[in-house]
């Protein structure tokens, strides 16, 4: 489900962005066309590519799908949810990142290593920030299992958590950074010196590239769903709501995704791309917001 939907979400974000930038919007289904087209091409591998390079797209895609199976997007009764809690989820995403960076270093081009280095730089700052966000939520709910957090937050009486407000800011910043969005990276750029994510994919082609692109779309979708689970869990079906609830949760999720996509596009349009050197400061801010959220929670108990 998530696997199929993910490119749609990406298409929607792109569409919103184009609208906001007064451009004629690309079709909503364009990412699907792109992936399909790539699958039908002959694969071209660089001379120095090792088996690691060929395996990486499958590993990255596999971890992203596995991550999707443990994030409560529509309902909290997930079959694999007990296999991994939120910390393991962060670990899983880190695995994907490490493999992608290693693959980027495999060919031994200047751009590949540059992209890998920057990606790991963004990663090592974004990962603890994301963990801080999760810690605050798990302190509130006394568990690190994501479905339980979502269920707890959704079913209890609505309460205002100042700590969650801080972490929401932190999470948004992490989401932007981790998914190669402006202001940290620009998904539309192929200007050599500024790219991060694209630099790592330079040597990929055809089906390998398709999988990588698909995994990237899935990652964005996953992050959005983590955000929903932590900050707007209402509407997702829980154990009590039965099959009707699951049916109801589909339009709810669609609505959330529409809103999130528009919000993301707005944020991206309003901000300018940072210099790479400024990216650590951006992420350190996110980390600080996460820590602040934690402190606020501990001080106020809320």
């Amino acid at each position, binding site marked *: 489900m998530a696997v199929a939907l993910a490119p749609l979400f990406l298409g929607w974000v792109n569409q919103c962005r184009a609208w906001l930038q007064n451009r004629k919007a690309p079709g909503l289904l364009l990412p699907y066309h792109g992936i399909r087209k790539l699958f039908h091409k002959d694969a071209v591998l660089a*001379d120095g590519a090792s088996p690691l390079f060929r395996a990486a797209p499958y590993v990255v895609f*596999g971890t992203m799908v596995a991550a999707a199976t443990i994030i409560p997007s529509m309902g909290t009764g997930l079959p694999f949810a007990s296999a*991994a809690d939120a910390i393991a989820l962060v670990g899983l995403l880190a695995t994907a990142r490490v493999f992608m960076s290693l693959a980027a*270093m495999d060919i*031994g081009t200047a751009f590949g290593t540059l992209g890998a280095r920057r990606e790991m*730089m963004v990663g090592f700052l974004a990962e603890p920030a994301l963990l801080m966000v999760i810690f605050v939520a798990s302190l509130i709910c006394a568990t690190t299992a994501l479905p339980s957090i979502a269920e707890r937050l959704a079913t209890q009486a609505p309460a205002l958590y100042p700590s969650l407000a801080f972490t929401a800011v932190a999470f948004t910043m992490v989401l932007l950074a981790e998914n190669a969005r402006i202001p940290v990276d620009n998904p539309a750029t192929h200007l050599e010196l500024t790219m991060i994510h694209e630099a790592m994919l330079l040597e990929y082609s055809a089906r390998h590239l398709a999988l990588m692109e698909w995994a990237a779309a899935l990652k964005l979708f996953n992050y959005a769903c983590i955000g929903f689970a932590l900050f707007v869990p209402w509407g997702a079906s829980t154990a009590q709501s039965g099959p009707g609830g699951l049916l109801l949760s589909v339009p709810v999720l669609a609505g959330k995704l529409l809103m999130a996509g528009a919000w993301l596009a707005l944020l991206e349009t309003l901000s300018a791309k940072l210099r790479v050197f400024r990216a650590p400061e951006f992420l350190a801010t996110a980390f600080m917001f996460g820590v602040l959220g934690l402190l606020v929670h501990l001080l106020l108990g809320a």
Partner: protein
Amino acid sequence: MGSALSPVDACLLLLTGWIAVGAAGMLSPGRFGYVARFLFPLGAVIGLALAFVAATSLELPVERVTLLIGLPDLPFHLRLDPLSRTFLVLLGGASAGISIFAAGYFRKGQGTAPGVLGLQYHLFLASMGFVLLADDAYAFMVAWETMALSSYFLVTSQNGLPEVRSAGFLYLLMAHLGAISILLSFGILQGGTWHFTFDAMRAAHLSPGWAAAAFGLASFGFGAKAGLLPMHVWLPEAHPAAPSPVSALMSGVMLKTAIYGVLRVTFDLLGEPAWWWGLPAVALGLATALFGVIFAAAQTDMKRLLAYSSIENVGVLFTGIGVAIVFRGVGMAALATVALVAVLYHAVNHALMKSLLFLGTGAVLHATGERNLGRLGGLIHRMPWVAWLTLVGVLAISGLPPLNGFVSEWLLLQTFLFSHEVPHPFVNMLLPLGAAIVALAAALAAYVMVKFFGVVFLGRPREAALAQARDAGALEKAGLAWLALGCVLLGLFPTQVIGALGAATVQLIGTAPPSDASPWWMLAPLPERRVSYAPLVLLAVVVAVLVATSLLVRRIYRRPVRRTPAWDCGFARGDARMQDTAEGFGQPIRHIFQAFFTMNRELPSPFDRAPRYRVVVGDRIWRALYEPLGGRVQRVADSLAWLQQGRISAYLTYSFLTLVTLLAVVL
């Protein structure tokens, strides 16, 4: 081995076996084939047997034995309890892999003669075993010193090089500072009874102040061995100087004996640690972890990089010990148990993965003769076995699921998440922030390891000579594979491992990790929190998706793969020197954490004919602490030098005066 043999006797026999193997090497120290191809594998078999004996006896009661050797009224007491069994498994398991590797590793005509090396190596192993078995202060110190000295000789086995000699000297100095501190700690622990057996120490009652002093001295002493800040300086010097299997043993196993010492003193000999002792331990641990990993990111020598990474892991271990002390002190037994399990788990994990990585660098060093990251690259094509097995270690130490490094980090983070329930103001707010630092260190460790693996094994070879590199031999591969297998199994079966560690936690703090009703493949250490982790399921999902996708892709889009030169944005003249070097890859870290380093840069001017770029990254602690300290010691020594008159009459006078003073004191 007959069934009548009790485990402690079996352990003793096996440790003696190691000494015998070492001694056998001295029969013909020059015969390379005999020592390398026969004695080292024999040592590995003994290691395996030791691990087996200790593992199968984990649940058995405590056994004691008193040897006939030792001081007149203080014979050596040995004791085999769950804690020492746990660490003996670590010692045996890790050393089996390392010894097998070493059998293929040592080459003819390098430094010390093979027989002597074999003696030192096996003495080192046996002394580590005796450290774990010792049950009185005297036996412990003898074993501890044997361990320090034998490893010193191993570090300086290539003693022709001046930097090896100075590294060895620094190591010996730090080892002895630590040993003195441990000795003083034991002196306090006997509590005025003047009985130096550990049993007497357990029975002695210390006032809180003296207990804290004993804990402080022990932490300092064992911390100096483990590489805790600021006593870490010897690690990055000694590890690169030593041959790789020795580095692996020192980093993988010897550092763990220091962790064992801290656990033994804190939880066993002192009995009831006060909760606030945990705070300095956590603070130092976190500082060490962060410091180690940041410096690891800036290194250009692969063994120095791993040495700093060891410092990081020691920091994580001390953090875990500190958290366990706090929880224990405030009476939160379940969480203390989980924290302690995390420490023991991480100790075993680190033994396996760091040994694996050090051996991997050893194989690379042999194949290429290079330790400098800037001259390696592309070795995955030439040395696929070493590369893929090292990759397992890299992923494990980066704390990625489903391998073993992740499990212990996960447990530690879980305990941190409940540290806000500690009933002390401020502490309950500051401790959870420690989780932030642990998370940061873990993420940075992944950065470091991507750098390490990417620069050494991936990309294009940076030197023409690398094209001649050959993969490791069969024995070396076997050693690497054994350790990699350990990493995978410990990652996939955490519930079983934790069950096995339970005996040690029962001994130390009286509670076992909760064994709840969850199925065998599911780890749920804190049942009331509803958290769980099932690496097998996770792996199964990933692998299933992976296989399904690749089959599907192959079935539907069967298209050929073409090989062409790299695209590189159409930049046709790129060569291997345009890849990131180790310096380049570490640049963001140097930039972000500038305040930690002292940097000496040598930048070329635009008109240089032969431009050179050099950056030397230094350690501020060395400058701020050790250099003034060293200067002061030197001055004091100089001012005392006039005592050395060089005339026999002066020395006779000294002896006479000493005798008179002693007599005056006695009478």
